[in-house]
Structure formats: C-alpha cells, structure tokens
C-alpha cells in the first residue's frame, strides 16, 4: 500500500532524530570497525581507465587516488577550493599552459615502492593509448603532454588555456603504478589479474572479490594522509532491491545507498536505522525530439515549434507531479542541473503552470479542437505523440501516466510506450522517438552541458532531442573559456535561462538522495559527485561497535573465497 503525501511528511518529521545530513569532511572519530554496504550491483572491473559502472567507481576510489579533489562546492573552474591528494601542492606556469604537481613524498604504493612522477607520466600514457580504449581518453584531449621535472614533480602541458584544465589534469585520471603495469600487454589489461586484484596508493587496500557476492577492502595503515578510521569496508552484492533492503533491516548490512519513497514508512519501525540525506546531481525531464523520427532531415511536426514546446510545458503542474511521484522526496527541477552543481542558479525564470495560456498558445499555433471531440488537430492531423519510458523505472512510469492526464486537459493526446532500458537507450541514440522520459546524472562539470544540448552534439553526440541554438552554443563557449568563475557563472546563467525559455525539454524533478544506515555508522563528507569519496573519514564510535566491528585487520582470507 502506498502512503499518502501527508503520511510520508509525518513520518519524515517523526524520524527526524534518525534523519540527518552528514557532517563536514574533517578528520575526527576513532579507528576500527566494519562497514557493510548492501550494493545493488557488482563491480565489473577494478581498473580505473575502463571503469563503466558505479560499484567499480566506488571501490576504485578507495584504492586509487587522483592528484587532487574538488572541494565540497565542486568548483571545476581553476583550482579554487581544491584539496591535494597524491599531490600536496601545485604551481601554474606563467602562461597558464602548464601545471606542475608536487607529489606527497610520503605516498607509497600498497606493495611498498614510493609513488613517483614517472607513475603520473605512465598513467597519462596508458589512459590515452588507443589500444586500452579508455572512456576517459577523449576528455584528456586538451593535455598536450606530461613530463617529469624531478622524481616528485609531474608537469602537465596544455595545448590551450581553459578554465577546466586543472580539473582535467587533477581529477580525470586515477594514478596507476608503473612498476606493476609497464610490462603488461595493454590490449589485455582489462582481463588481467591487476584489473581484478588491484594495488593502488589510496586509503584502503584490496583484500578479495568474490564475483557477484562480495568485495572487501581493509584500511591501508601506511596511507600518506593518515590511516582511514574504518578497518574494513565490504560491498555485499544483492542485485534485487528487496533483498538489499532486507539485509539492512536484518542488520546483515550497515548501509543502503538509496531509498525508495515507500521505504520510509518501513524504516520508521526500525529505530536502529537512520536516514541520511546527501546532495545529488540527478534530475528528471521529458525530452522533446525536434527532428521527425521517421525522417530526421525534417523538423518534428509538433516539437520543432518553440511555442508548442512552451505550451506543453505550461500544461504540466511540476510541483504536483514531483509530489505525486516522490511525495516529499523531490523538488521540481529548474533546468539540466541540480542545486549541487557549482553554477546552479535558483533565479532562472521558469515557464509557469498555466493551462489556459497553454491552450491559447496551441490555438495560435494552429492546433485546435475543430471537431469538438476534446482533442486538438491541425489540418486533420491530431496533436498526438508518444512518450518512450523505460519500464524498469517506476518513478518515470508514474510521471508519464500523470503527465498523460495533464496533457489531456489541454486536448493533447500523449501515449506511453514502455520498453526495457537498453531499448530505450538505443531508441534515443537513433533519435527514433517523439518524447522521452529521462533522468540524468551530471558529472559536476558545468561545460558538459555542451555534450547534451549543443548544435554539435545534435549532429553527432548525446543531444538526442536535436535542440539547436547558435546563441546557446555561443553562451556556453563563452562560459567555458572564462578563467574567472564569476564571469563563467554569468554566462552559464544566460545559457540556462535560454534553455528554460526555449523548452527543449520539460524539467520535471530533482529527487533528493537519501541513504539508510545503522545508527552506529557516522558518515562524513558525503558529496554530490560520490557519497563514497570521503569514506576514509567515516567512523564507528568504540561504544557502539558490534561483533563484526571487532574483527580487526589483516585476517587470513583463503584464496578463491
């Protein structure tokens, strides 16, 4: 049975003592304890250049390090707010075409040797080697070369200045050990032993990976920034959400990284479990295809018209929609970004919910209910379109059904076509759809908006709706070339406003991310670009520990288990 919105609201208020925001990323707490994460998917590989799934990314982030990490505000322009990891400092060349990273002399690979600048050069060479096929390689295009100045200084040289060049150098690659990989056949790296039992320089070391069952890491007590508090972190794989939830409730697991709206009622009966909200980069939207799916050289008969897209946006009550789908666990989205993005701007003017004005705009565009049957048509062609929806996503399905009713009120016939997730993806890629229910997770880099909405990406890229606006392109180009974050922000604001006005999509909701965890787990610094990025700072107080927290380090683990 689904709880009503007021019930959920009451429950949320009732469990406020258990529901909290996590603390800032500062060192503190006590060493020891085990964190068991109920994970919905297994890792596929533990080799950063080829990482394609979130569990792999979570595990790798504990084993391998970036040169530096963005601060809480996720600033990607310049180096303001960035914190050193493998590099403890850096200096810019006079012409800003080079950055020299000075490595922490205390940094060691987990098998003993020190981390050296040659490892950074090797890492760049490996990421950009076409035989490796790294997903990251195209993102490193602005790096001209990487050289060794001395054993602890690696210098990145750039072909041109760009505001995000620091992020590119410091944050796109996790540094790999040259001494363990230099002799490997690069084409075979993805199926190598290293890719399944890696050695890095990060706060946790690899212990074991039993495929589709468990991944275990333990504290690297020699970590150059101080040992992590937790002794062990275990990903306990449970692909079925109900099984994962049950593991949490039964105490077999300590944490579940996301919750469904209906779970809060159940959790209110478990005082030993708390919910923790963390920032998110996920938003949902209904994407309009502005090209005719049957012949992409022609404009779409409905959505190519800006007034019609605006009218359809006006027909949707997004506040009610977010409430109906997520109860109080989402807010209406205002654009292709969330509050966690550094360039977020809450003042973007929105197209209001106004069915009367929507009807007027549709009338003006020639879409009228001439025959009085309740549906609009033009020149005998009905105003009818299909929304493609992945059947695996309950929120998107619910949203589609509610929107169907809202469209109906202004005489627009929207049909729903459900399909499995890969089919939904391939239909989008092939541009064979009218409208598509989508969710998107930003990577935290403002300029990636170009990959989703620019004219160039409409021709060959991920602008599946084929929205084209030279003004938008120019604004984003200007923003992406500004070295001053404030000036860049001003350009991004104009670009966001243009997207809101042109309505290439209806911005629907921004789900709030909640994790559930046992009360004894004290999370620190959960970030929008990865709740797991500060796992080294999480802790379990001595007085709250249970049997599995007292196992300690370096226990014998039989091979093959």
């Amino acid at each position: 049975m689904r709880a009503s919105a007021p019930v959920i609201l009451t429950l949320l208020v009732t469990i406020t003592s258990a529901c909290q925001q996590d603390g800032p990323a500062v060192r503190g707490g006590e060493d020891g304890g085990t964190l068991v994460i109920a994970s919905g998917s297994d890792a596929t590989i533990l080799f950063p250049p080829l990482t394609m799934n979130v569990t792999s990314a979570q595990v790798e982030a504990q084993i391998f390090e970036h040169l530096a990490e963005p601060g809480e505000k996720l600033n990607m322009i310049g180096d303001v707010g960035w914190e050193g990891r493998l590099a403890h400092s850096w200096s810019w060349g006079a012409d800003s075409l080079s950055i020299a990273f000075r490595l922490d002399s205390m940094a060691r690979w987990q098998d003993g040797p020190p981390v050296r600048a040659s490892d950074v050069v090797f890492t760049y060479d490996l990421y950009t080697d076409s035989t490796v096929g790294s997903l990251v390689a195209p993102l490193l295009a602005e790096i001209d070369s990487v050289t060794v100045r001395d054993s602890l200084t690696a210098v990145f040289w750039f072909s041109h200045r760009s505001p995000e060049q620091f992020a590119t150098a410091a944050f796109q690659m996790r540094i790999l050990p040259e001494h363990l990989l230099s002799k490997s056949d690069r084409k075979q790296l993805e199926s190598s032993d290293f890719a399944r039992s890696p050695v890095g320089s990060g706060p946790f070391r690899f212990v074991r990976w039993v495929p589709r069952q468990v991944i275990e890491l333990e504290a690297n007590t020699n970590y150059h920034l101080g040992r992590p508090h937790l002794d062990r972190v275990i990903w306990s794989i449970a692909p079925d959400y109900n099984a994962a939830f049950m593991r949490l409730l039964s105490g077999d697991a300590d944490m579940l990284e996301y919750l469904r709206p209906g779970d809060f009622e159940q959790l209110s009966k478990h005082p030993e479990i708390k919910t923790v909200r963390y920032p998110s980069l996920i938003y949902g939207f209904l994407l309009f295809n502005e090209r005719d799916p049957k012949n992409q050289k022609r404009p779409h008969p409905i959505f190519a018209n800006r007034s019609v897209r605006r009218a359809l946006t006006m027909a949707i009550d997004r506040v009610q929609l977010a409430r109906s789908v997520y109860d109080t666990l989402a807010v209406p989205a205002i654009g292709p970004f969330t509050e966690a993005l550094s360039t977020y701007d809450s003042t973007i003017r929105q197209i209001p919910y106004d069915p009367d004005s929507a009807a007027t705009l549709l009338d003006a565009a020639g879409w009228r209910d001439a025959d009085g049957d309740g549906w609009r048509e033009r020149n005998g062609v009905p105003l009818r379109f299909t929304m493609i929806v992945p059947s695996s996503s309950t929120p998107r399905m619910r949203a589609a059904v509610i929107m169907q009713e809202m469209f109906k009120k202004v005489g627009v016939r929207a049909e729903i076509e459900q399909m499995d997730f890969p089919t939904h993806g391939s239909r989008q890629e092939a541009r064979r759809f009218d409208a598509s229910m989508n969710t998107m997770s930003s990577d935290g880099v403002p300029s990636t908006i170009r990959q989703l909405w620019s004219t160039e990406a409409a021709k060959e890229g991920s602008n599946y709706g084929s929205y084209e606006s030279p003004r938008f392109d120019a604004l984003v180009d200007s923003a992406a070339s500004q070295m001053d974050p404030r000036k860049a922000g001003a350009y991004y604001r104009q670009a966001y406003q243009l997207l809101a006005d042109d309505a290439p999509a209806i911005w629907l909701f921004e789900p709030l991310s909640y994790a559930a965890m046992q009360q004894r787990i004290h999370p620190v610094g959960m970030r929008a670009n990865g709740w797991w990025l500060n796992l080294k700072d999480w802790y379990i107080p001595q007085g709250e520990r249970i049997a599995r927290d007292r196992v300690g380090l370096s226990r014998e683990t039989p091979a093959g288990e």
Partner: protein
Amino acid sequence: MIALLLRRLAQGVVIVWLVATLTFLLLHLAPGDPVSATLTDPLTPPAVREYWIHRLGLDLPLHQQYWHYLLSIAGGGFGFSFPHHRPVSAVLAEALPNTLLLMGVAIVLAFTIGIVLGVVQARRKGKPIDWGLSIGSLFFYSMPDFWLALMMLLVFAYWLRLFPASGMFDPVMYGLMGPWARAVDRLWHLVLPAATLALLVTAAVARFQRSALLEVARQDFARTARAKGLDERAVVWRHSLRNALLPVITLFGLALPALLGGSVFVESVFSWPGMGTLTVNAISTRDYQLLTAVVIVTSVLVVLGNLIADLLYAWADPRVRLEE
C-alpha cells in the same frame, strides 16, 4: 542401450546448435547492443563507443559475426563478455557450479519428498492426510515462483530470522570460520533458495506419484502380491513403486527446464550468484556472447536431463529396453 545413447546424443547436438543459432539471430534482431547497453552515460564520447563496437566486431556483417561466434563456441571459449571484461568461459565457470548446487539440492529434495508424499497419499487415499497434502501441494503448485521466493524471504529471513536473507555465505565472518563452520554457513545460506525451488516441484511430483501409484495398485501383479500374503508396505515399496515411477521419471526430464526457469527468479530474490541472475544481467546489458553461452549451457543441461530420464526410464521399465 549404446545405440539409444548415441542417437540421443546426436539429437542433442542438433538441438543445441539450433538453439544457439536461434538465440544469436533473435538477440541481434533486438534493439541495442552490448556497448550501448553498458555505456549508458550520455556523456560517453561517441569515439569511445565506436572504438569498442569495432573492437568487439559489432560493426561486422551479421554472417561474419555468426561465423566468429561459431568458431568461439567450437573453441570452447564462448568469446569475450564486454560488460564483465572477461572471457565468457571464466564468467560461466563461476556461475554454473552455484546453479548446479542449487538445482541439485532442489531436485533431490523435491523428488525424495515428492515421491514419499505421493506414496503416503496413495496409501491413505480419501483420508484427511490425503486431503490435507492434496490441498497443500495444489497451493504450492499454483504459486508463482517469484512470489513464493519473496514470501519465504519475508517469513524465514525477516520475521522469524531463522535463515540469512541472501547470498551464498556470510560476507563478513566467513573468512574467520574454520572448515566445518564454513560448510554449515554455506548450508545455512542454501536452505531458503533450495527449499523455494524444491517446493515448486515437490507438489507436482507428489501429485504425479499419487495418481501413478493408485493406477498401479489396481493392476494384476499388485493384486497377486497381496494374494501371496505380503503386507501393504511391501506391496507398495517393493512391487508397485518401481512401476509407478515412470510418470515421475518423465516429470524429471521436464523439471530441469522448469527449475532452470524458476532459478532466474529465485536466484534474483535470494541474490544467489548463479546462472539465473547472470541471465538477467546479460539480457539487460545485451551481452550477446554471455547470453548465448548461457542458453547453450542451459540447453545442454536440458538435453542431458532428458537423456538421464531416458536411461532411468529404461532402468525402470524392461519393456523400453526390449523395444530399443
């Protein structure tokens, strides 16, 4: 007997080839491919997608892909799984024993309990215990597998907390256990999924066994045995049961594909890392190589199951041997 075996094996090879070919064709007709289904992030650069499509040979004409596919099967490797970043044979080698363990235990439980229940029902025909067991077996027989699995999880793992909710072993403490404790831990984790699968089949076995035994009990040899003064227990267990096993042996051949199908849901609910969950993942990632390998292995298992059923049939019924 050897001729029967060889004929059945030859038929089996043809069936497996047909299944493999049909699977290959159907998969390639479905929208999507392993690369687009794995690299789902729209921010993935098109150049990266193209690189992997080329490297995996997905840009080759279909007949060439089919030829490479047949060669990889002939080599026994089944090709490379892009979503798993490993040879398919390595992925299968991990999952297959887990499914065989689960299915093996479920089959032994289902047929042992089912045959015993069928005998009890036949001997107590029309009595309350017969009625009770009939209603009970009908209840489980008509139950959807995924629903039964969820109910078992809810009742025994969550409410009563008698058994672990999922997995094959305790993810935290297993490494600290001695060999005996590990065996117990594994057994403990096996109980719920194996019992769920077994329950689904036990009901059918019991019903088949009951009616077969009642049918046999009316035949001349059973009447003769009774006339010789044998007690009812000896008549049933020594004379009637072997003859009444024939429909149950037929059911054994049919139970294998049913169990394999049921294991998809049961493994998923109990997070059992076998072929069932592997299949679900392979479908959602359009993992052509892995999925076709799973189908081939499954069809081999079914063919072998039917072969075993044929052999058992010949063992149980001398007339079959004479006909052959």
